Structure formats: structure tokens, C-alpha cells
């Protein structure tokens, strides 16, 4: 089996596995603190127990997600060196700075999260307790920022030059703020906020469908859909910039994602379809001029085709489907949250109709899928490079004979963790339903 015989393939698959699992928790880890903060802030401002309870219950689920995010993050951190030793040796020289700072950012976040969780009732003033969340949210966003610049560097290795096989002129700052970083970082952070909102919205909508017609869930749904809409729109805007970045600096990635082979002007955007033998897509949806607009903001602009890239440096063409999945889900979520927001603003009953709620429930997993598709597209779309133009994955991978075995072991681990998360989260919220908890709170409030 290739997995056991070829360490390069094995390393790629194990990295794929770890990142695919980790990114779910990393994304929610970045986005959910902001949601908790907003809920608690609204709760304090409106003096509404429901929002405070929302923050409290989200935080309780959040720690479980953070735990898995921490341990899988440790796994990928070490696997980078274990699976890609040549790459990390080179990367250590140039891009170690943001990796190092990421640890600080996370450290900062972890400390304050610990304090926040165990001090719910230690502050007289709720606002002081809310303040503890600020470093948590900042730490989370900074972690995402730093780590994404490393990925940006892999796509756009700036900040050093190689003369006669020797590395010279290293500038860690330039490497960190490489050409790919601005669009990548904003895209990652915006989508983390968007996905977290829609995942929490899905939970609220699901609760409302399960007979519970509690105001608590309605408020949760309303809040998350609104925040989700804002970040979904932000994501679309950033996505447009990402398209322009790719067209200018990584044309082969955009071309592979778009099945755009010949350099031409007035290029259409191709969605889905099947690629024939002559590289002609059939059954595809074509949006005229759209690729030219995405790439250069001009319907008549010329877009570089994949044929300009040497055959052995072309990414695999199936990234097209990842790209399409990401775009489709993003657009769907903008539409859905816009309709929800508009309908509830106008007081139309469609906002609280069953089909609407089912669609919102579907939006949670779909948003996660969009994140996954985006990362698959980003990583497969960079092939054969691990560091674009400098080092290929073949050159970077370990030669160890045991990569396949480790793949099996880690697959087992992620399965155990995945099941554990589902079981524990269900238990936490089932054993302690919100009605019960709110009831207790109300009693306490009266006693005071």
C-alpha cells in the first residue's frame, strides 16, 4: 500500500489528516471567544439574564473544544518537524519568528481563559469578568494571525534569497509579512468568526426545532445569524482580494482551481462540471467575465492560464471542486443569513418557519465543510511545492519507514477524540438543560 511504502505520500496524508481534524477546533477556537464576548456584553448592557447564560453555556462547551484544539495543535506542531524535517530546517531559519510568537499568543489566551472560566462568581462587577475575555479573544486572533503568516510564507517565500545553495539576507519580518499574508490572514480570521457564528446558530436552530420554544434559543439564533451575516459579507470581500492576489502572484493555483488552461481575456468563471480528455469541461456552469473580474476587477482583463506553468509544477485539477464547494457554501450562507435577517426585521413569519430553521441547522456543518474545502484547496493547490518555487514536498519529507503506521495510530486517536467531543458536549448540555439552569438563576436573583 502506498501509504506504507512511500514516506512522501504517507507524510502528505498524515499532515492532511491532522490538519483536517485540527482546523475544526482551531477555527472554533478563534471564533467562539468573540461570540461569548458579544453575548456577555449584550447581557450586561441590556441586563438580560438570557445573554449572560448564553455566554456561560457557550464557554462551557468552548473549553472542551479548546482542549482538543490544544492537543491536536501540539500534534501538528511536532509533526511538522517529524514529517518534514528538511522543510522545518529551512523554515526555522526564515519563518520561525511568527511560529514562536504564536506560542506566546496562545499562552496568553490559555492563562486568561483559565482565569475567566473559574471566576464567574468571583467578581462583584460583571464587567470586570467580561474584561478577562478581551485577552482571550485577542490571543486567539493573534494565534491565527501568526500561524497563517507561516502558511502565507509557504505560498510566497519572501524575506531571504538563496545564492549558490546558501541562504543569505534573511529578514524575519519580511518573511512574516510576505505577499500572501494580508489576504490569507484576513480570510482565515473572517471565516473563523463566520463559521463559529453559523455553528452556534445551527445549535440554536436545532434546539428550537426540538420543541423547545424558549426565548433563550431565539435570542441566541438572532444574535449569531446577525454576526454571521456581517462576517460572511466580510469573507466575500476578502475572498475577492484573495482572487486578485492569486492572479498576480500564484496564477497556477487560481488557474487550476478554475480549470482555466489558455491565457485569455474575458475569462469566464467555471463552476463544477466534469473535465473531458481535451481539458474541456462539460456540464459546467459558466459565468461569463466573472474570472476576469475576480482576477483583475475588469471583465476584459487577461487571465493567465495553467498552460503557462510547466507540467511538472502544475497543481492537481481536483482542487477545482474544493474551490467550488467553498464558494458555493459561502454564497449560500450570505443568502441565508440575509434572508433571515431581512425577514425577521420585517416581521415575516418565514424567519421562524421550520424550513428556514432546518436550513440554518444545515449551515453549521456546511460552514465547517467550507473551511475544510478552503484549506484543501490552499494546500493541494500549492503542490508540488511545500515552499513555492524553493522546495518540493518530495524533497522535504522524512524517509522514515514508519509513516504509514503513524497514520493509522493518529487516525485512531482522532476517532477517539472526535467521539469523545460529541459524547461529552451532548452530556454537558443534556444533563443541565438551559431551562433548569435559568430557573435556578432566577431564584437566586430573587433571593438577592
Amino acid at each position, binding site marked *: 500500500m502506498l501509504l506504507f511504502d512511500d514516506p512522501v505520500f504517507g507524510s502528505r496524508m498524515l499532515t492532511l489528516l491532522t490538519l483536517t481534524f485540527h482546523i475544526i477546533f482551531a477555527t472554533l477556537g478563534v471564533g467562539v471567544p468573540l461570540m461569548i464576548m458579544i453575548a456577555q456584553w449584550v447581557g450586561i448592557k441590556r441586563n438580560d439574564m438570557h445573554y449572560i447564560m448564553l455566554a456561560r453555556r457557550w464557554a462551557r462547551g468552548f473549553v472542551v473544544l479548546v482542549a482538543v484544539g490544544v492537543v491536536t495543535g*501540539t500534534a501538528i506542531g511536532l509533526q511538522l*518537524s517529524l514529517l518534514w*524535517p528538511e522543510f522545518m530546517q529551512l*523554515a526555522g531559519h526564515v519563518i*520561525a519568528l511568527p511560529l*514562536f510568537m504564536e506560542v506566546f499568543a496562545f*499562552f496568553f489566551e490559555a492563562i486568561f481563559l483559565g482565569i475567566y472560566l*473559574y471566576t464567574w462568581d468571583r467578581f462583584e462587577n460583571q464587567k470586570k469578568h467580561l474584561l478577562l475575555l478581551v485577552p482571550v479573544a485577542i490571543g486567539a486572533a493573534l494565534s491565527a494571525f501568526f500561524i497563517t503568516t507561516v502558511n502565507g510564507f509557504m505560498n510566497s517565500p519572501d524575506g531571504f534569497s538563496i545564492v549558490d545553495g546558501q541562504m543569505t539576507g534573511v529578514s524575519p519580518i519580511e518573511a512574516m509579512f510576505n505577499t500572501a499574508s494580508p489576504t490569507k490572514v484576513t480570510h482565515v480570521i473572517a471565516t473563523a468568526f463566520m463559521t463559529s457564528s453559523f455553528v452556534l446558530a445551527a445549535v440554536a436552530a436545532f434546539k428550537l426545532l426540538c420543541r423547545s420554544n424558549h426565548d433563550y434559543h431565539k435570542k441566541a439564533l438572532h444574535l449569531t445569524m446577525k454576526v454571521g451575516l456581517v462576517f460572511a459579507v466580510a469573507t466575500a470581500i476578502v475572498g475577492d482580494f484573495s482572487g486578485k492576489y492569486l492572479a498576480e502572484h500564484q496564477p497556477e493555483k487560481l488557474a487550476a482551481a478554475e480549470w482555466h488552461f489558455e491565457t485569455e481575456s474575458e475569462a469566464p468563471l467555471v463552476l463544477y462540471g466534469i473535465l473531458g480528455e481535451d481539458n474541456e469541461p462539460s456540464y459546467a456552469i459558466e459565468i461569463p467575465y466573472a474570472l476576469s473580474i475576480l482576477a483583475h476587477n475588469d471583465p476584459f482583463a487577461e487571465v493567465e492560464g495553467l498552460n503557462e506553468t510547466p507540467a511538472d509544477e502544475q497543481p492537481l485539477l481536483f482542487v477545482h471542486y474544493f474551490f467550488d464547494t467553498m464558494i458555493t457554501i459561502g454564497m449560500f450562507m450570505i443568502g441565508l443569513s440575509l434572508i433571515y435577517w431581512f425577514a425577521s426585521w420585517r416581521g415575516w413569519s418565514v424567519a421562524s418557519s421550520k424550513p428556514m430553521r432546518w436550513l440554518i441547522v444545515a449551515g453549521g456543518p456546511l460552514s465547517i465543510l467550507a473551511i475544510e474545502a478552503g484549506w484543501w484547496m490552499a494546500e493541494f493547490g500549492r503542490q508540488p511545492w511545500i515552499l513555492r518555487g524553493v522546495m518540493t514536498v518530495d524533497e522535504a519529507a522524512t*524517509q522514515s519507514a514508519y509513516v504509514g503506521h503513524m497514520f493509522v495510530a493518529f487516525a485512531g486517536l482522532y476517532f477517539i477524540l472526535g467521539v469523545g467531543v460529541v459524547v461529552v458536549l451532548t*452530556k454537558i448540555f443534556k444533563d443541565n438543560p438551559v431551562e433548569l439552569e435559568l430557573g435556578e438563576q432566577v431564584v437566586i436573583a430573587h433571593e438577592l
Partner: protein
Amino acid sequence: MSYEIIGMVVLWTFLFGYVIVASVDFGAGFFNAYSILTGKDRILTKIIQRYLSPVWEVTNVFLVFFFVGIVGFFPSTAYFYGSILLVPVSISIILLAIRGSYYAFENYGSRGHRGYAFMYGATGLVIPASFSVVLTVSEGGFVDIMDGRPQLDYWALFSSPLTWSIVILSIIAVLYISSVFLTWYANRAGDMEAAALLRRYALIWALPTIITASGIIYELRSHNPEHFGSLMNLWWMFAISFIFFVASVWLILKQKNYGLAFILLIGQFAFAFFAYGISKYPYLLYPHLTVSDSVTNDAMAISLIVAFVAGLLLLLPSLYLLMRLFLFDDQYIAGKK
């Protein structure tokens, strides 16, 4: 001071921090499981939970800090150790992942679940054992360079008495460090029953700690005479370490000032750990990789040091706050908050 020395000192200090913090954590998990097994959980579980809950995540960050830092300051370590440690470190990661997440599952999901608690306790002893293998490998004799690529000789590693001495020391040290810390913590909480039990554990594990540690120095004499020689040059550091050890055991024995006893214990381990670290210099992986071969370029070294100082300025006040709220707040420790 050259950048490589600064880098090494910083990283070694963080590794030491991890050894202490993680030992407390690992040992606490073990004592918790052991107390459930022997029906003493009524005495111990509460005090252990009280301490572990807010700090478990912080422990892990020390480790991440160390390995990210070493790749930054000494990128060649990523190549050498990355190439040879796939299997042992993967095992450690898996155990660490199970431990970390199942702690959270137990703590936030189903408190008192015996399966989780046992898993947590067992991994607490296996993880230090599996990580300690890295130190053994660094002593040399287990790595060959074939076609320019380092290869680990698994059989030589697992059949070496040095490997097993280090494994045993790591486990015993975990139990000792942890029981001394928890004795102090329980005492502060005013939980005399728990303090008495933990004090007994501390006294049980004190002597084995020193015996196994001396055993390793003895093993090194035949395994790596060069390293043994430089260890002997630092005999005075080990002597100080031993004096600290005697003083802290005496305090525990006399049931006096457990706080000072724990500080002395940190001193004991610090002197031994740094003496060991200094004596390894200049090798990162004997004899293939030295500190000066592998150090990063000046630009990166400077920026890492700047980032480190800035990071510390941010972290130290935060860590202080964490400790004040949970470690030095008597009312919290006693369970009144």
C-alpha cells in the same frame, strides 16, 4: 554572550519549567487514580481537582514553547531529531492528546468517571517515560548517519540500561516532585488529612529519586565517558543540589514549612538539571550536532530574542495574576471561592 548561549539558556529554562509543572500535573493524575483504586479518593480527589482545573492548559504550553523555540534557535535540530524521532515522539503526542482531552472530558463532562481517571493517571507516568527517551538519544550511540540521513537504532536504544535508568528516574521524579508540591498545597488548604497522606508519599519517593539519579551518572561513565568527564567537572553543582535535597526532606520529615521545602526541591532539581545541561555543551546530539553548527542566522536570533523579551513582559504579569488567584489565594485553595 553569543546568541546560541542565550538561546540555549532560555530553552533549557523553559524545559526545566515544563519538567516541574508537568511533573506536578502528571503525578497529581497518578495519585488521583491511585486514590480511587485504594478507596482514598475521598481524601485526595478534591484537593487535586482544585489545583489542576485552572492550570492544565498552561502546562502544555511550556512544552510547545520548548520545541518551537528549539526549531527557531537551532533549525538543524528539526532535521536531525525530526528524522529520527517520528515513532517515539508520535507515541508521546498520542498519549499527551488522550491525556489532555480526556482530562477536559472528565472535568467538564462526567466528573468522577473512573475510566477517564485511570487513563489520566496511567498516561501521567508513561508520557514522561516516553519523552525521556529523547534525552537518552541525545547522549549519542543510538544514531547512525546513512546516506547523509540520520537513522535511529531502535534495538540499541531499547536494550541499553541507560535508557531504562532514565525512564525510571523520570517516573520517580514525577511522583516525588508532585507529592511534595501537593503536600504544601493541601496544607495551605487546611486539609490536614490529605496533607498527611501526601507527605507520606513524598517521603516514600525521596530516596529512590536520589538513587536513580546517581545511577544515571554511573551509567554515563561507560556510555559516554566524555560527557561523564564534563559532569564531574561540575561536581559542586550536584553537591549543592544534594544539600537542597537533604534540607527539603528534613523539612518534610519535621512537618515544617512545606512551602520552603518545595522551593528547596525546585532548587535541587534546578541545580541538577542545569549541571546536566551545561555538561552536555556543546552537543545537541552527541557527536553529530553541536550548538554552533546548528544555530540560526543573526537576524532570526535577534528577532527571536526581542520577541521573547516582549512576550515575557506580557506573560509574567498574566502568570502572576493566575497564581495569585488560584495558587496563592487561600480562600480559593480551601474551596471557599
